[in-house]
Each structure stands twice: as structure tokens, then as C-alpha cells.
């Protein structure tokens, strides 16, 4: 479909959607000069806050190429710092606000850049995303630890909420200041980017990083500056937003600022004027729905979903990405492809371990722990759905748990209430077309934009899907574990073993798939789309297949989630925010490996156990903090933790003669050439020859063809 037609379709769909929603949810308030003035007066401060946060995202993204998921969390955290100093210690806001925005925030930004972000340059997108998502969790976790969320916090508005009237609506000084600051920032950023030396260098970096560096732009200074500025903008947005929220909940504050994603994408993450426009449209839409529309029952959460709906629509309107050529200097991945036999042995070992555990360590009356282990295996199964999609095909999805949720609902509705075995497969089958639909935006959107689209999708599913009467509706739905071969798996022990067997079989299947033509084609597509199409690979067909496969596995996993939970209650257990740690844990473990998925399951399980069994207040924040901090490990080892673990282990196995050789070869392939002392303090060995040859692009052996040519 041509760009023009698909855009027309999206626009028509958007208008139809807006008209339909406005018509059905119309609250009956009169639309006149007064109500429209009120609308605008209420929308402008909101637009200002969104614009500030979004500008921070844009400045950082354009200068460093990293999309900062943690923007909202940084704003939240610094708003709490401001709260601590003003409310808790009683310092005057007039002093604290500049202190936080102009001193603490820039220092935090520079620290983040130096310690973390700089090391992400040139890493795979999924790694970059995971680290900033992890950072978001870390900040939420840290804030939860420092400021007890069981007591409400509140931040007074500037000038104690006084203000003046425009028409009938009160515009507080706080909101007025917000608008003024946003406008001043727009002017200030414009001057910075167009009139100052550092700003011009930043814009040069946007156009061509390498060229700007050659022209003398010091990218390290620029990236520190961008992060400092980004954090300042986040702080400003967070502090101005905090008094507008009811209780300063850490997650609310964080996710309100995530609204900024939509505005930033309107500016295609480059243009600040368009970003401001996006913020304005979003604020107007939010106020429009707040002032004139009433949502009830199944649509209650639609207003919350507005930013993500807008994000989704804007993403669909982006121009089609051109065929991707491989990036020069891409990450050297370590991808040992295990054999089906090894996978089968591993899975058998896992099964034996789980059986022994459930027989001798966990008693059958200890349903809590058995249920946690089963949840861990279900999580591993969801993570497995990303192995072909993200690990091999390189399509980053942040919505695996949303697909699992759809699968869980499908299971509950299609026979899971009495444990029909068919319902499990129907759950997968129902999810497949939903996932396959994603192949179409995935044809247009590459990389980051696709990841954002999946995130928006996950949020939309959370807000509007589960509340539908055909899904779960207002009440609960109870489900039974399947009956299979005359066994009902209502006993938690039997269920745990069942899920383990299912994971094992799926894992072996996935390993076999990687070794098949389809698996090779997926990796080829990721490594070079341009080369793939020139050997005849149909990209749409391939993406359809892998999205369908991934969604199917996630839906299948969802059925087991539902069985383990026993009842389904709204989005509980399938929230967007619950899905992100699964992605993180998988990336930490190794996104291209079945063992990485198992790692994700074990990671989730350990978190649950530590959190509920260790009664130390420090661990309260751990749900968020642990994945956030753990993900930093992948900066050092982007292939994932299971690679060194697996290779170290495999070398000890008597039948794995090849493992030691592979290990050495891989160490040589991934090591950075170390020249110091070579030939002087240590001998010039075969591995060094290989390394130097590879770096210089020299062929170290004369191919046989040459010999043949000579003799002939």
C-alpha cells in the first residue's frame, strides 16, 4: 500500500474514532465561548509540562541517539528531592527550585552520561532501550525506598494556589508560571540551538555524528551537556507537575511524564516546534475528554489511554522507513547455536530438578511456593516468545505480557472455565492474528518506533481491553487448570511439573527452529535487510510469520498464567509495567537464547521470593530497583549472562569437546585487540594474528581458488 493511501486510511480512522467516541460519550455540556475558554486555560499548563518533558527527550535523543525511557522517572525523582528540601526540611522553594533544576539535575545528568549512557553508543537497540527502562525502574525503586509510599506526599503549589480569573476559570499563579516557563524555554532552546556554539554543534551531531566529530565537535562534552539539559527539563516538568497530582505517587508521576513520548514523536524526535505542537494537541485532547465526555463502565479508562492512543496514531503516520542497510561497526554478538540434542538434555535436567524440588523441598501443602515456581515457569514461557522475535529477527517488542493477557482471556472465555485442553490452543490461535497485525506497522517502523508502538499497544490493551464485557468486564472470571490424559492439574505440584514440561518442549522447539531455514532467515533479516531482499526474502511474509509465532507463544503462555492465577480480574498481572521487567530480565539473560528465557523466569521468581520473605524495609523498592540495576550488567556483556554461564558449564561436560574450542574462538572474536606489550612482554600468538587480521581486514590465508588459478 502506498504511503498516501495508508496515511489517508489512518487519518480517516482517527477522525472516525474521535467522532464515534465523542458521540457515544458526550456528556451534554454546552459548547460555547465560556466552556471553550475554560478548555484552553486548563489545557495550556498541561501542554507546558508535557512540552518541557518532551523537549528533554528530544534534546537527548538528537544529540546522543539514545531514547531516554527514564525521563519521567528522573523528573519524578527530582520532584521528590525538591519535596524533601522544601516540605520536609522547610527550605524556601525560591531557593530550592533553582538548586534542583540548575545544579542537582545537571549533575545527575552528567553522572548518568559518564557512568552509563556513554557506554551504550553503538550497542544494539534492545540493549539501549533495556538500560533506560531499567534506569526508570531503578529511580522508581529508589524513590519508593527513600520516600515511603504508604503515606501520601503532597507538594504545595507555587503561591499557595492563588491566582486570577480568566472568564469563569481560575488560572492559578502556579499554572500561569508553568505556561510562562514553557514559552520561555521554547525561546531559550531556540536561541541555544541556533545562536550558540554548543547548540550549533549539537545540531551538527544530529545531522551526522561522525562528520561533526571530524569537524571538531567534542561529542563527549556534547552528550554530557545534552544529558544535563535533559535532566533539568525533566526536573522542571516533574516539580511543576507534582502539586497537580493527588498524592505524588511515584508511578503516577513517572507515567504522566511518559505522556511526553507522544508529543516527542509528533516532532519525530528531532523538531522542537513540532514537539510543542504535539504537546498542545495532546493537552487539548485530554481536556476535551475531561470537559465534554463522560466515560463509564467498559470505557472508564479511555481517558488514561489517550496519550498512548495518540502515540500509536502518530507512529502509524510516520513515513515508511527505507530498506535498512547494515550499520557499520555493529555489536559483535556471541550467538552459539545449541544443538537440539543439547537442548533436550538441558530441558530434561530442568525437569528432573523441578520434580525433585517439588517432591522433596516444596511440600504439596506449601501451595504458595509451588505457585511461585509455576509463575516463574510461565514468565519464562512469555520471555521465550521474544527469543525469535527480538533475539533473532531484531524486532523489539515491549508487549509480550499484553499478548499473554489476550491469551489468558481467550483461555478463560473459550473453555478454560472447565479446563478444556482445546482452550489452551485456542488461546494461542486467538492471539496469533493480533500479533500478525503488528507486522504491518513493523514494515513501516524500524527499531525504536516499533518498540514504542508495542509499548503503546500494551498500554491500550491494559486500559481498554480487559474491561470489555466480552473479555473480563467488571467482575472476575475463574478458570480451571487443564484436564489432560485423565489428570486434572489442580494440584499445584502437578501443575508446576506440567508447566515445566510445556516450557521444555517449547524450548526444544525454538532451538530446532533456530537451526531451520526459517531461523536462519530471521537472523539474516536482522543482520541485513538489504541483503535479505536481494536474495529473495519477502520481508512482509517473514515478519508476519515471526510476529504471529511470537504472539502465539505468548498467548499460549497466557493460558498457563490464567491457570496458575485461578481467577482473572481486570488487567491484574498483565499490566504494561509488569511486562517490562520480563523484557529486561530476558535481555540480561540473553535475548537470543532459550536459556535467556529461563533466566528471566528464575529472575522473576527470585524477586518474588526475596520481596515477600525477607522482611527488611530496604527490599520494598526491590521490585523496581533490582531489574533496574541488574540490567546495567549488559553494558559489559550485551550477549547476556547465559553465554558465559553456559560456556563455562559446557566445558565441564565430558561429551562437549567442542565447547572449549568454541569458547576460545568466541573470546578471541569478541575481545578488543589489546596492543600494549604485544611482542614485548607477551608473545604474538595465533589469537593475536587473527585479531589483527580481522581489524585490518587482511585475509590471513591464501584461498584455494588462488592456488587453483596458479596451477591452472
Amino acid at each position, binding site marked *: 500500500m502506498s504511503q498516501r493511501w495508508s496515511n489517508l486510511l489512518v487519518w480517516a480512522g482517527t477522525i472516525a474514532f474521535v467522532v464515534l467516541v465523542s458521540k457515544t460519550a458526550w456528556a451534554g455540556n454546552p459548547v460555547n465561548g465560556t466552556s471553550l475558554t475554560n478548555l484552553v486555560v486548563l489545557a495550556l499548563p498541561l501542554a507546558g509540562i508535557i512540552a518541557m518533558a518532551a523537549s528533554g527527550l528530544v534534546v537527548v535523543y538528537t544529540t546522543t541517539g539514545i531514547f531516554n525511557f527514564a525521563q519521567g522517572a528522573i523528573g519524578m525523582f527530582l520532584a521528590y528531592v525538591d519535596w524533601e528540601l522544601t516540605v520536609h526540611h522547610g527550605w524556601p522553594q525560591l531557593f530550592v527550585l533553582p538548586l534542583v533544576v540548575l545544579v542537582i539535575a545537571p549533575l545527575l545528568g552528567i553522572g548518568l552520561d559518564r557512568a552509563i549512557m556513554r557506554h551504550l553508543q553503538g550497542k544494539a537497540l534492545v540493549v539501549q532501550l533495556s538500560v533506560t527502562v531499567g534506569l526508570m525502574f531503578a529511580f522508581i525503586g529508589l524513590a519508593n525506598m527513600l520516600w515511603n509510599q504508604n503515606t501520601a506526599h503532597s507538594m504545595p503549589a507555587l503561591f499557595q494556589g492563588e491566582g486570577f480569573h480568566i472568564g469563569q476559570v481560575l488560572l492559578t499563579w502556579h499554572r500561569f508560571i508553568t505556561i510562562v516557563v514553557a514559552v520561555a524555554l521554547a525561546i531559550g532552546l531556540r536561541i541555544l540551538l541556533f545562536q550558540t556554539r554548543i547548540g550549533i554543534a549539537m545540531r551538527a551531531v544530529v545531522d551526522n555524528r561522525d562528520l561533526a566529530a571530524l569537524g571538531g565537535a567534542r561529542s563527549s562534552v556534547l552528550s554530557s551537556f545534552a544529558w544535563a539539559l535533559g535532566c533539568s527539563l525533566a526536573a522542571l516538568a516533574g516539580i511543576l507537575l507534582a502539586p497537580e497530582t493527588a498524592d505524588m505517587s511515584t508511578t503516577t508521576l513517572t507515567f504522566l511524564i511518559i505522556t511526553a513520548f507522544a508529543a516527542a514523536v509528533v516532532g519525530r524526535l528531532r523538531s522542537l516546534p513540532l514537539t510543542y505542537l504535539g504537546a498542545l494537541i495532546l493537552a487539548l485532547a485530554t481536556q476535551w475528554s475531561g470537559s465534554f465526555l463522560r466515560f463509564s463502565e467498559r470505557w472508564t479508562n479511555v481517558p488514561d489511554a489517550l496519550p498512548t492512543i495518540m502515540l500509536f496514531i502518530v507512529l502509524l503516520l510516520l513515513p515508511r522507513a527505507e530498506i535498512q542497510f547494515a550499520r557499520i561497526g555493529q555489536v559483535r554478538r556471541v550467538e552459539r547455536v545449541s544443538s537440539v540434542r543439547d537442548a533436550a538434555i538441558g530441558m530434561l535436567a530442568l525437569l528432573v530438578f523441578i520434580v525433585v524440588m517439588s517432591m522433596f523441598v516444596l511440600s504439596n501443602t506449601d501451595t504458595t511456593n509451588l505457585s511461585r515456581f509455576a509463575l516463574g515457569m510461565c514468565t519464562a514461557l512469555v520471555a521465550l516468545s521474544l527469543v525469535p522475535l527480538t533475539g533473532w529477527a531484531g524486532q523489539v517488542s515491549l508487549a509480550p505480557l499484553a499478548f499473554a493477557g489476550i491469551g489468558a482471556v481467550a483461555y478463560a472465555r473459550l473453555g478454560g472455565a472447565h479446563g478444556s485442553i482445546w482452550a489452551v490452543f485456542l488461546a494461542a490461535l486467538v492471539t496469533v492474528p493480533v500479533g500478525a497485525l503488528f507486522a504491518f506497522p513493523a514494515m513501516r517502523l524500524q527499531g525504536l518506533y516499533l518498540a514504542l508502538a508495542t509499548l503503546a499497544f500494551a498500554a491500550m490493551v491494559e486500559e481498554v481491553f480487559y474491561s470489555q464485557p466480552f473479555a473480563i468486564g467488571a467482575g472476575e472470571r475463574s478458570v480451571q487448570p487443564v484436564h489432560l490424559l485423565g489428570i486434572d492439574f489442580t494440584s499445584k505440584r502437578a501443575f508446576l511439573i506440567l508447566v515445566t514440561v510445556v516450557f521444555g518442549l517449547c524450548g526444544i522447539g525454538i532451538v530446532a527452529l533456530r537451526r531451520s531455514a526459517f531461523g536462519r532467515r530471521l537472523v*539474516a533479516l536482522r543482520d541485513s535487510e538489504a541483503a535479505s*531482499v536481494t536474495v529473495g526474502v519477502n520481508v512482509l511474509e517473514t515478519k508476519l510469520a515471526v510476529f504471529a509465532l511470537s504472539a502465539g507463544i505468548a498467548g499460549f503462555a497466557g493460558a498457563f498464567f490464567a491457570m496458575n492465577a485461578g481467577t482473572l480480574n481486570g488487567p491484574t498481572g498483565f499490566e504494561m509495567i509488569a511486562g517490562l521487567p520480563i523484557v529486561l530480565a530476558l535481555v540480561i539473560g540473553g535475548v537470543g537464547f532459550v536459556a535467556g528465557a529461563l533466566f528471566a523466569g528464575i529472575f522473576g521468581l527470585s524477586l518474588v521470593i526475596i520481596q515477600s520473605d525477607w522482611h527488611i524495609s530496604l527490599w520494598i523498592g526491590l521490585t523496581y530497583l533490582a531489574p533496574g540495576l541488574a540490567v546495567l550488567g549488559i553494558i559489559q556483556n550485551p550477549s547476556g549472562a547465559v553465554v558465559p554461564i553456559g560456556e563455562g558449564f559446557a566445558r565441564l561436560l565430558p561429551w562437549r569437546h567442542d565447547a572449549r574450542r568454541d569458547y576460545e574462538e568466541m573470546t578471541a572474536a569478541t575481545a578488543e585487540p589489546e596492543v600494549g606489550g604485544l611482542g614485548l612482554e607477551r608473545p604474538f600468538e595465533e589469537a593475536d594474528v587473527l585479531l589483527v587480521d580481522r581489524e585490518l581486514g587482511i585475509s590471513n590465508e591464501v584461498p584455494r581458488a588462488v592456488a587453483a588459478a596458479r596451477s591452472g
Partner: protein
Amino acid sequence: MGLLEIEEVSVQFGGLLAVDDASISVPAGCVTGLIGPNGAGKTTLFNVITGLQAPSGGRVVLDDVEVTRRRPYRRARLGIARTFQRLEAFGSLTARENVLVALEMRRRWATARYDCGKIADELLERVGIAHVAETRVEALPTGSARLVELARALATDPKVLLLDEPSSGLDEQETDALGVLLHELTAGGLAVLLVEHDMPLVMEACSYISVLDFGRVIARGTPREIQADPSVQRAYLGTAKAAS
């Protein structure tokens, strides 16, 4: 009439006319050279032929079938294969797997049944990299990785093969071997379009040469004619006036 006909193709990037009304004929059974200074539009023309770049005007005809509006994968299935100037190998796959991907795709539209593994080994042997078959391509030296691309392109059993600077990264002996291989391939009826900076290789291997400068075909003929052409010398060396 060539097997591949590029007819009056133009490509516009904003205000820049990268390819300007270029027509080139690539006959079967011989190597056609495409030379020109850097930035002349050679790689852009390759992208147009393979469908990675839409032309702003003109036609691409393969074996009397117009393919200008076909998607890249369809053109590959019709028999156009290429290598890339900047390596586009599947880096995390082994050399053998790179070739297998192409063979396994071809099995979908090829009429004859065949054993992918066996043919992959034969192709790797043929281009001279059988000894690194099980090495992942990103760990290979550039020259070998280029030969992997060549083997992968041959695996699609093309009618027309586009080679974009295949000799860069190869040493002298490997380049000689490449020349021998090109002769063998064209003897089997393959049409080859060769972009190359290595002039001895071009002059030795090509039957016809087209010269591209600023997107325009400024000369075409046999190697001997091209070497004697004053406009080519101007394009490559500049005139005495321009040089001063």
C-alpha cells in the same frame, strides 16, 4: 539487445541528480564494466536495478520483462543478484549459513529439487572459502566476507550478477582468482555488471565498459575504446586547465 536493459534511468535526491538519464545494456555471457569517479552514481544505479532505490524516471528491463515497479525480492526471484560495496553479509551467521539462506529461499521458486547443503559446499569451494565455511562472517577478514557475498549471490542462480567493487579487500592473488572465476561464470551464460576501481581487472575481464560521471553515461565501448576516449581521461584526471 542485452539481457538487462537500463533505459534512461534518473534518480533525484532532493536537489541532487545522482543518476541522470543513464542507459546501459548488459548482455548475457560477458562482463560489462561500469566505471567512474567516486560519487558518479554507480552504487545508486545498482540500487535502482535491484529495487532498493526507486528511480525518478526510466525503466529497468530484465529479459524483456519490465521490472521497474517490482519489489526487490521479486527481482531477486526473477534472476537479479548482487554484492555490496559496503559489506552486507549476515554477520552472525556462518559463511555456509549465509549461502544456505539464499539457497533455501531459491528452493521456493526453483523448479528443480536440490540438496541445499551440498550446493552450499560447492559454492564455497568455488569462490575459494571452503576452509572458513563454519566461521561466523563478522569474524572473517573483509576480503573473505566479500567472497561470502559473492557465493550467496551465486546461490540465487541469477541471470544477471551485479558486483560492486568485489576486489576491494582482496590481495593480488585473490583478485587474479576472481578474474578467473568471472570468466568461468560468463562462459556459463551469466550476465555480469561489474563496478570496480581496479583498472587492470576491469580492462582484462570486461567485454564492454560504460563510464559514469556525475550521474551521466559519458562513454561506452570496448576497453580499448574507453582507454583512448578523451572525455574519460578528462573525467578521471581533469583537464590541464582544471588541474591548474
